[in-house]
Each structure stands twice: as C-alpha cells, then as structure tokens.
C-alpha cells in the first residue's frame, strides 16, 4: 500500500511542464537579447553584450513608450479603483434585489478582450458611432476619439475600465463582506456618521485587499496588449504606443535581439511590481 507521501510524484509532470514552458523561453530570450539578430539574416548574428539594452536606453521611442505605459496604467487603475470601490459600497447594502444585479454588472469581465475593444471601436466611431450622437445632444461636441492623441489615451482608459471595473468591484466587495457587522453597530451607537465609519473602519480594515487589487490590476494594465492593438494600434502616430506595442512593432521588423531585450526589461519591471505585491501579502500575515 503506497503511503500518502508517495503522492508527491503526481505533481512532477505538471510542474515540469509548467516550468519548462515558462523558463526555457525566458532563458532563450535573455540569450538572444545579447545578440544583433535579424530574422531575415539568420547567418549574420553578432554578439553585442548589453548593446541592445544600451540602444534602448538612448532610444526616444522606448522612453516615450515607458511614459505612455505608466500614464495608461495609472489612469486606468485609478479609474477602476474609484468606480469599483463606489460600486462595492453600493452592493454591500443588505438589499435582496442587489444579488441578481451583481451578475449583470460582472458581465464585461467575461467578454473576450478583443471583442470588447472591437465593440467599443464601433461605438466610438466619430461618424457612425452611437456615443458621439448622444454626446452631441448633451452639447459635448464631437470628440475624435481615436484620431486625437489625448482622446485616444482617454479611450484606452475608458475601455479598459469598462472591462475590469467588475474586477475591482468583486474583490473589494468580497473584502467588505468579511467585515464584522458589530463594528458598524458599535460605531452607530457611538454616534459616528457614515463617513466616519467609512474612514475609520472600512478603509483601515480593507487597505490590504485594496492594495492587492490595485497591484494585480497595475501589473495587468502594464502588460495590456489586446485592447491597445485593436483600439489604437499605438496611434495616432505613436501617441499610445505602450511598451508592449513597441515590442510588437520591433518584433514585426524582425529585430529579434531588440525585441527580446524589450521583453526582458518588461519582465524585470513587472517582477518588481510582483515583488511589491508579495511583500504586501507577507506583511499582512
């Protein structure tokens, strides 16, 4: 009779598969990033050392893409956090009719990202789109959503927010539901206002969950590709070219050394955020 401990061998195939599929490409990518490596000239590969990285550091296109990515990440996460928090507070109330509504609010999260972006592209279309008609009725003009640099960034934030506000909402709501009701009863007895209860009970007790949600979303937006690709393709010009879009463009040019170098830099930046997340989770234990 096999002891239960012998079950550890069950996890070997899965773990090896997973690590191989992630680690082998990453090591290979690091290696390629040290070379001058064009896809069209497979015989003409030269060792550059850190050359690709140094070239990127001096490249204005790369620097701008970092700025664009940070703007998008900050804008989208802020919008999603505020809206998600407001929704969660709304849904934390003890009304029975809120339950079915919650399922509806969750829907955007399940929409295929590419399809969601496509849908919004149709809606934002300046002539045929429906949004500008209603904005016009409200006297808000006829914004050229995807043709104007600022509006294009705004559109990306809008669409990302549409898709993932439910994420923030659900995570914060899950946190709210674990808070003991007695605390709020006690606060009410002591004459605390709704705002005071929020400020002195909800915020401190939920700080951890909110920080985790913000960091997870931050990492996700930082790596976002689908929505940017479909909505703006990095345009107009390179106004919304995130690091990921730049990476895709450089890859398309066949400049493999540099494409891999950008990938490794992204990985390092995301790893830093991930480290931060882990520290937060560990400290709370």
């Amino acid at each position, binding site marked *: 009779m096999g002891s*239960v*401990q012998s*079950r*550890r061998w*069950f*996890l070997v195939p*899965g*773990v090896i*598969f*997973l*690590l191989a*599929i*992630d680690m082998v*490409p*990453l090591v*290979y*990518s690091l290696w390629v990033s040290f070379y001058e490596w064009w896809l069209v000239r497979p015989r003409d590969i030269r060792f550059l050392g850190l050359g690709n990285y140094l070239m990127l550091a001096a490249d204005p296109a790369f620097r701008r893409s970092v700025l664009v990515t940070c703007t998008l990440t900050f804008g989208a996460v802020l919008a999603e956090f505020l809206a998600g928090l407001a929704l969660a507070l*709304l849904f934390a109330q003890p009304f029975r009719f*809120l339950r079915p509504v*919650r*399922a*509806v609010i*969750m*829907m*955007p999260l*399940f929409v*295929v*990202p*590419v*399809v969601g972006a*496509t*849908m*919004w*592209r*149709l*809606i934002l*279309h300046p002539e045929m789109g429906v949004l500008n*008609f209603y904005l016009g009725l409200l006297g808000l003009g006829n914004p050229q959503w995807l043709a104007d640099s600022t509006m294009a960034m705004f559109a990306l934030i809008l669409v990302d927010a*549409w898709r993932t506000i*439910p*994420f923030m909402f*659900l*995570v914060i*709501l*899950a946190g709210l539901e674990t808070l003991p009701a007695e605390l709020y009863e006690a606060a009410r007895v002591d004459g605390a206002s709704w705002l005071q209860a929020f400020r002195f009970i909800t915020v401190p007790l939920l700080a951890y969950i909110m920080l*985790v*949600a913000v960091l997870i979303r931050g*990492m996700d937006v930082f*790596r976002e590709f*689908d929505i940017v*690709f479909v909505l703006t393709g990095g345009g107009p010009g390179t106004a919304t070219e995130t690091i*990921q879009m730049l*990476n895709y463009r450089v*890859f398309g040019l066949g400049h493999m050394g540099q494409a*891999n170098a950008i*990938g490794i830099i*992204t*990985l390092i930046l995301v*790893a830093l955020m991930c480290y931060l997340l882990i520290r937060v989770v560990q400290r*709370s234990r």
Partner: protein
Amino acid sequence: MRTRKLLTVLALIPALAWTLFPLLWILTASFKTELSLYAKPPQWIFSPILENYKRVLFNIPFFEYLTNSLLIATGTTLGSLVLGTLAAYGFSRTRFWGSQALRFLILVTRMVPRMTLVVPYYLMMLKIGMLDTYTGLIIAYISFAMPFSIWLLIGFFDDVPLEVEEAALVDGCTPVGTLVRVVIPIAAPGLAVAAIFAFLVSWNEFLFALILSGVHSKTLPVVIAGLTTDLGPLYGEMSAAAVMVMLPNVLMTLVLQRYVVKGLTLGAVKG
C-alpha cells in the same frame, strides 16, 4: 430604510447603463440593415434582419475559424485538466521541503508578461517547424490555464476526507485508481470550474494566436481583430461576429458567478 432603498436603485441606473449600453448597442447593431445603422438619431426599435449573421457565417470562412478555436480550446481544457489534476492532487496530499515555495512559484508564472514569452516562443517554434499548428498554441495555453487550475483544485482536493482514500487503498485500489474512482468524483464540481476557465483562457487569447497562427490555425479573436482594419462597410458584420464570439462567455458568467472572485485573485483575498 425606504429612502435608502430608493437611492440605491437610483445609483444602480447609471451603473447598469454603463455596463449594458455597449452590449445592447452591439446586439441591436448586429440585426440592423445598413440604412438603420447610419440612422440619426440611433434606432433602438427597428425591424431586425439576419443578413449580417448570414454574411459572417458564409462569406468569411467562419466555421473554419470556429473549428480552430473550438479544437484548440478543447485541447487546452483536456491538457490542463489532466496535468492540473495530477499536480493539485500531489500538492494537496503531500508536504515536503520547498512544497510551499513551489506552489507559490506556480502562481508567479502567471505574472510573466505574455509578450516577453511569445517572442522567444516564436523563434523556438520557427526552429522546430511548429508555427501555425494547433499543438504549438495548445502547449502555450495549457501553461496559461494551469496555475489557476492547480490552485483551484488544491482547495477542492483538500476537502476530500483522507479516510475515504484510505478505505479505497485497503480495498486494493492503486493510487491512480483511488484518484480516478474516489477522489475525482467527489471533487467533480471543482474540475468543472477548472475546465470552463481553461476553455475561456484559450477562447479569449489573442497575442499568441496573432503571432503564432497562420492560415491553418487562425482563431476567432484574430479574425475579429482583422476585420477592424476596414471598418466602414463591415459595421453590421462585425457586430454580428462580436455577438457570436461573446455569447459563450456571457453564458458562462451565469454558471461561474460563485467562483469568479476566487479565480481572479487566485486566493489573494483569503490569503
């Protein structure tokens, strides 16, 4: 209490409008003639037609792409279920030096940016001649789906009492037999959720499909993104295609509600 209820309902209206407006607009657009698509003010009530759906289904080889998407998603689901179940069972039943760290490492693989992976992955697939194959995509997607499957299933296996297994072993079941005949039936709901999530991971994925697939393995998201290039004349068709690709996902929402939070945060909330 009554005023509070009223205020809540009032606050729900913009939230629901924001959520549903784009979905409803696309749904109606997919049933419109070209004339009513261009109509100002936008028409919400009109006589629906099926032309757009017919054109998507028969003019672009939609069924071919649908088959690609379905086969790749099925392969991903099966692969990640088999590997994920074995791994989760192993993690659930054993503790050894570094097992916690290993669990954690599996979670961290989810954080690796896809773009960072796809570039070297492309070069490797190019080298071994596996570009534009189902297998190339399925292998990648299994690795995307597995971290979640493993974490979800560990929770379900932890709930299966050890005594049940011991009884099976005494009756002469092999360890694999115990897993298949005793443990899996008890944890079946967990497997169903893991399967649905794995399916959706594959169904939704865009970047790897964009870069790795070609004429033989193009999936629906790539086709949809491709339609956007010449927007004007395809407005109706695109809406119809969007609705069709979105449909399975929206239906899944209803099935999966309970597990969504768990899946999204991978247990971060409960720690």
